């Protein structure tokens, strides 16, 4: 039996997913328009342009900004109230796997910023924080839902 997630989990993750989508959209626009579109310092350790134009900003020919946008385009429905209410276990497992993968990717990006590029992009850090918050909430809530200890039964369960 799949139980429902607490309301705060549904509300918070929905807002976080939308925030992540907003920031990743901004970073994608900046990628195509040019780094001058990024409202971010370009001196010292905080340097968005240095990060977003580095060789590490492209993976297998795909800009990381686009990967982030694609992730959050998928995350918004996965973290929507409708998805949280689903009684289909696969929806919750996919959400768990997706956010786990996203978190691992974020760790790689942080390592690249700190150890390879040598600069931090504030907007990217915003996405990283949102992803970590989604990860923390999801892995706290979803296992409880799946083992039936999360609270009320899911809709139609």
């Amino acid at each position, binding site marked *: 039996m799949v139980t429902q997630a607490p309301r705060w989990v549904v509300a918070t993750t929905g807002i976080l997913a939308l925030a992540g989508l907003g920031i990743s959209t901004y970073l994608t626009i900046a990628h195509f328009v040019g780094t001058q579109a990024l409202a971010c310092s370009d001196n010292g350790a905080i340097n968005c342009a240095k990060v977003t134009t580095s060789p590490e900003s492209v993976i297998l020919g795909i800009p990381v900004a686009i990967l982030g946008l694609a992730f959050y385009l998928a995350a918004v429905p996965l973290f929507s109230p409708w998805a949280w209410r689903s009684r289909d276990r696969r929806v919750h497992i996919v959400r768990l796997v997706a956010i786990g993968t996203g978190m691992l990717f974020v760790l790689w990006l942080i*390592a690249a910023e700190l150890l390879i590029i*040598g600069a931090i992009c504030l907007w990217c850090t915003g996405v990283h924080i949102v992803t970590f918050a989604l990860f923390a909430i999801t892995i706290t809530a979803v296992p409880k839902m799946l083992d039936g200890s999360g609270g009320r039964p899911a809709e139609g369960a």
Partner: protein
Amino acid sequence: MAQQPNNKKKQASKDASRAVATTSKRTAPTKAQRRSTSSLLTWGAIALVVVVVAVLVIVKISGGSSTSGGGGGSSSPAPASIVRDVTTIPATVFDTVGITSPSVPVSKPTQIKGQPALTFTDPAGGAKPGVLYVGAEYCPYCAAQRWSVVAALSRFGTFANLGITQSSAKDVFPNTQTLSFYKATFTSPYLVFQGVEQSSNVSDPTTGYKKLQALTKAQAALINKYDTAKFLQGASPGSIPFLDIGNQFLSAGSSYSPSILSGLSRSDIASNLSDPTNPATQAIVATANYLSASICATTKQQPSAVCGSKGVTAAAKAMGL
């Protein structure tokens, strides 16, 4: 006696029930244990992420990062062919390009009013309109801007000892090929130019990049006053490259994106300066025309051959001068 087998069966049944009960008792704590294990895994995963990030930050702070500026060292004397190409751009190229740069936008210097005129003392002791450039060899925006500064100033005077260098390999627009003002001198009957390269492109663990030239007090005062958002919209204080033309025109950052120079050698950039259809040339020359028009405003439109030229007048008109 006849009941003994039944008693045995009952006893066996009781034993079986006890066994089931015992098993049930074992099941209950297992379920709780499972929740406990799940909770442990959850918090363990969160803690792991936090620890990994903390370790990365500590490694970075403790200097384990790759902070090399790369770039193949600091400047060296510029080959004569490159100096010739960039300092003797044909007037027809300046006039044909004008302020047109279809491939990459070019921004104008910012005109400021009501400020005391900037003058520097020439070697003979006379005061002349001053042009101050402050940059650094690692800086990719400086790399782009220098081509135009040299092209523009060469219409008013003569450079000696120009260097060649490239921007940092680890910065944005890595390895942008350029000239250097480090050790360069400029003589002109119209103005005095001061070019300051604050840092090389060679990394230094304490300062980021090895220091080259320090600002004089007067130069630092100009930076502190004018290289700010008060005079240059959106500029971070102390942004480089900074250009002050007679305290009448300012610019911070490059006037065009260094991306247009990506992948080009210095020889490519220099030799293309005679081709007004080349995209890099258009960006460099259009910027040079804007800078020339600004300089002309401080030199009382002298020399007239430059200040009255088609390219410079087009720039002056676009700047509202």
